[in-house]
């Protein structure tokens, strides 16, 4: 069943939507007379409901059919299902998470979406390069973060946020980005993403990678008609790598949606 047939099915139920210009398969629901999460289409995996900005990292990663792709922090699986759609059944997706409970949700979503070419692993992402070094064409590190970009949805995040938390997460994120990068084949690409806004969890993490891996090069990101701004290169009296301007910050008030940070890193070398 193709995209248009699914859209027709939903239109018959009175759902109206608008194509997201920068997302290959994304639509924003404008009028939802029924609860989409309780429809047959949702239960059969013909549609997947997620916030539009959450689709940005996979759009930037742009997996192609035939590639081997690693989603290092995959649960609950929104981005994994999106990667699977890009792969179109060709290549392999490895969806990993560290939490057993979250892996169960990941497995359900990938089953519902009908993904044949997937391997679900349960492991600390930091250990992945031990047996999968230079194995993947693309790696997504959608790192655990302090989630400041989704405060509008959950005010409790702001109440429990503190700088210590951000610094603690930053340490984990640095280890994850290095692990993800080491799993890349030369010539492969990594996308690092968080849904938070602190420099410690974003630009400083990418800077850490650039300092430790000589063959890590930042690439420009181009998403037409999405409002975003460049990464920060000066913070708290500290000068960061100028190249970090190539990373993007999507502020919640830019698109009246969630906030996100996304960096696209190339591993130089012959593939």
């Amino acid at each position, binding site marked *: 069943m193709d995209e248009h*047939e699914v859209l027709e099915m939903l239109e018959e139920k009175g759902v109206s939507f608008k194509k997201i210009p920068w997302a290959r398969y994304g639509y924003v629901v404008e009028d939802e007379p029924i609860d989409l999460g309780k429809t047959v289409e949702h239960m*059969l995996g013909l549609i997947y409901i997620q916030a539009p900005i959450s689709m940005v990292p996979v759009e930037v990663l742009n997996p192609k059919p035939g590639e081997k792709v690693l989603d290092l922090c995959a649960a609950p699986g929104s981005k994994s299902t999106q990667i699977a759609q890009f792969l179109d059944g060709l290549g392999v997706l490895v969806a990993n998470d560290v939490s057993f409970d979250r892996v169960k949700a990941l497995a*359900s979503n990938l*089953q519902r979406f009908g993904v*044949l070419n997937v*391997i679900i*692993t349960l*492991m600390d992402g930091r250990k992945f390069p031990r*047996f*999968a070094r230079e194995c993947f064409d693309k790696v997504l590190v959608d790192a655990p973060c302090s989630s400041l970009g989704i405060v509008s949805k959950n005010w409790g995040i702001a109440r429990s946020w503190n700088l210590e938390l951000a610094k603690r997460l930053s340490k984990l994120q640095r280890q994850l980005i290095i692990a993800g990068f080491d799993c890349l084949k030369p010539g492969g690409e990594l996308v690092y993403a968080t849904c938070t806004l602190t420099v410690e969890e974003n630009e400083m993490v990418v800077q850490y990678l650039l300092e430790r891996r000589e063959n890590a090069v930042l690439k420009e990101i181009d998403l037409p008609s999405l409002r975003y701004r460049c990464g920060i290169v000066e913070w708290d009296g500290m000068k960061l790598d100028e190249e970090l301007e190539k990373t993007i910050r999507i502020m919640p008030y830019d698109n009246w949606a969630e906030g996100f940070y996304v960096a696209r890193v190339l591993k130089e070398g012959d593939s």
Partner: protein
Amino acid sequence: MKPLSPRERRFLENRLRSLYGVEACFNDLVLIKCGRRRIRAATKETMELASRLRGVQQVGLYVMKISDGDISLSVEGSQLLDDEIKDNVIELDEEQVEKWMKAIPIKTEKTYRGRYVVGKFNHLYLGSARVSRNGLLYPQIPKWRRIP
């Protein structure tokens, strides 16, 4: 997780042929035994990579369950076989589809060969339902994907 042996695969193909009229099934895919009764399907490339990794929990897609020689297809299993399924299919209307996805028993007048039938709505296959002696079909929709 172990791929089916050629003998086990032949047995499965024969059962699918006699129960659902399926002539060609899962040709390019590896079928994997998962526990005693469950079968998953994956591409060859996926299996190759899985053998190199650690911490593997699942590979590919859950497609069917075998019980006493009968085969219950999952939603995805029936969608993979698609129009290859010729026998033991029940065409559902919109109201029945809702019931099916809520795992509410559906009354049927017809008699079916075997213990399971596959539900179909337009071009969509919805997995198997167990046929009971009292003429009711019990859709085998797992709890986590039922419409509440």
